[in-house]
């Protein structure tokens, strides 16, 4: 049994899965729209959370949050299930829902994902994909970060659904159970934009939003001296990976947000959002420049502070730009 499910490649897995699940049920909202409504745009520097021993710099809120907020603001009810230490039950339950002709979103670990290019495979457990059918031992998979739909065997799917380590999926699966006939899209958009602006500008902790970007900029200057050339390069490289590797749509989600603002401008019939989208594109372009310069600095594993100071200066500039941007956006929301 294979459902008539459209595979839509996306920039980001979480929003991509939700967007295509909703489309199956007749609600057409792009990935960018889900991202914007779910307030996916963010910056957080969390030195107390380490990934591969490196402090986490993130350009989005914690996994699952974008999706939860978007569902709430759109009035969509999702059924979510987890199965701690019960892999067989998790697979049986998935089969049961598929038999009802419903595609199912599942959380997965990336390390054992057989169809991924080997260079992508790290122990990252908050990946998402849609299962849209089963024939014999084979499951049909729509993974938004892949160009084409793909498949996994029963054992392979069970393994990735029960990956271990931080953010372990525990067999988590989800699917929409009720979608309202009338959706107040404008109100959902306002709430999404308002929260993004607030989180970027007003969280009274220096690690989050534009303050977080400025704080990290200060830290980066000290890395080569404090950590030595090898570790400093690893830290900086991790930042570039958070900005660009599998599933940001480029520039740490900044381009997806610019795409969202263009859609907003059409829905609201308000050209001012289109103008703001252009500003956001410029901010995204600067983050791309950041990645490009940072990669050059990492490549030679040089401990020359110049490379680190250059990217730190650029971050200060970006922090100013993002601050100005969200102050402007907030003015439109009044």
């Amino acid at each position, binding site marked *: 049994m294979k459902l008539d499910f459209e595979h839509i490649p996306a920039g980001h897995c979480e929003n991509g899965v939700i967007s295509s699940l909703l489309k199956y049920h007749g609600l057409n909202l792009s990935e960018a729209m889900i991202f914007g409504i779910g307030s996916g745009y963010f910056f957080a520097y969390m030195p107390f959370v380490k990934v591969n021993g490196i402090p986490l710099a993130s350009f989005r809120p914690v996994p699952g949050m974008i999706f939860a907020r978007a569902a709430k603001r759109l009035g969509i009810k999702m059924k979510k299930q987890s199965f701690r230490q019960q892999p067989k039950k998790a697979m049986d339950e998935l089969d049961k829902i598929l038999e009802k002709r419903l595609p199912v979103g599942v959380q997965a670990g990336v390390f054992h994902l057989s169809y991924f290019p080997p260079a992508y495979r790290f122990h990252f457990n908050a990946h998402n994909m849609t299962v849209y059918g089963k024939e014999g031992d084979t499951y049909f998979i729509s993974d938004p970060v892949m160009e084409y739909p793909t498949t996994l065997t029963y054992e392979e799917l069970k393994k990735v659904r029960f990956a271990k380590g931080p953010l372990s999926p525990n067999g988590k699966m989800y699917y929409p159970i009720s979608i309202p006939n009338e959706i107040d899209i404008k109100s959902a958009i306002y709430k999404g934009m308002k929260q993004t602006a607030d989180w970027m500008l007003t969280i009274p902790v220096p690690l989050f939003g534009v303050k977080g970007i400025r704080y990290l900029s200060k830290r980066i200057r000290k890395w080569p001296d404090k950590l030595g050339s090898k570790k400093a390069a690893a830290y900086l490289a991790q930042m570039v990976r958070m900005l660009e590797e599998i599933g940001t749509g480029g520039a740490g989600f900044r381009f997806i947000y610019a795409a969202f603002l263009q859609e907003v401008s059409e829905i609201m019939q308000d050209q001012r959002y289109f103008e703001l989208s252009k500003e956001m594109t410029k901010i995204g372009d600067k983050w791309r420049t950041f990645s490009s310069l*940072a*990669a050059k600095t990492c490549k030679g594993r040089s401990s020359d502070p110049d490379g680190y100071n250059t990217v730190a200066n650029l971050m200060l500039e970006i922090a100013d730009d993002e601050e100005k941007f969200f102050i402007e956006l907030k003015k439109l929301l009044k």
Partner: protein
Amino acid sequence: MEIDKVPQDEGITEGITREVQYAVDENGKYVKIFSKGWEPKNIVNELAWDDIHDNMNDANEKILAGKASPIMYFMAKNQMNVALLAEYVELPKWRVKRHLKPRGFKKLKQDQLSSYAKVLGISVEELLNYKPTN
């Protein structure tokens, strides 16, 4: 970024897939474009793999010096630390630490060996007969 500037630098995607990139077309409208990859991404990904290979080499040196068991090499190869490996083999960390030493490794029973081998993606023979070549 404009669509004609979307980079197409083959690298980590290895021809297996292409990634979605958001970019503006000639009318200034956002569209989704496929990208084969981007050099800065290839560089930082390679750097992460260099670190994994360094860990594998460190493990090999310890094994040759008689200070570590083969599990340490395969643990590094699977990008695991003690905590993660312990979770996968469902043992407390202190026991896994013992098995990382040659003495503890020798005492492993058949079912424990197969549990490690399965988690590390190798056969029991490969695990038992592993010899570093450097």
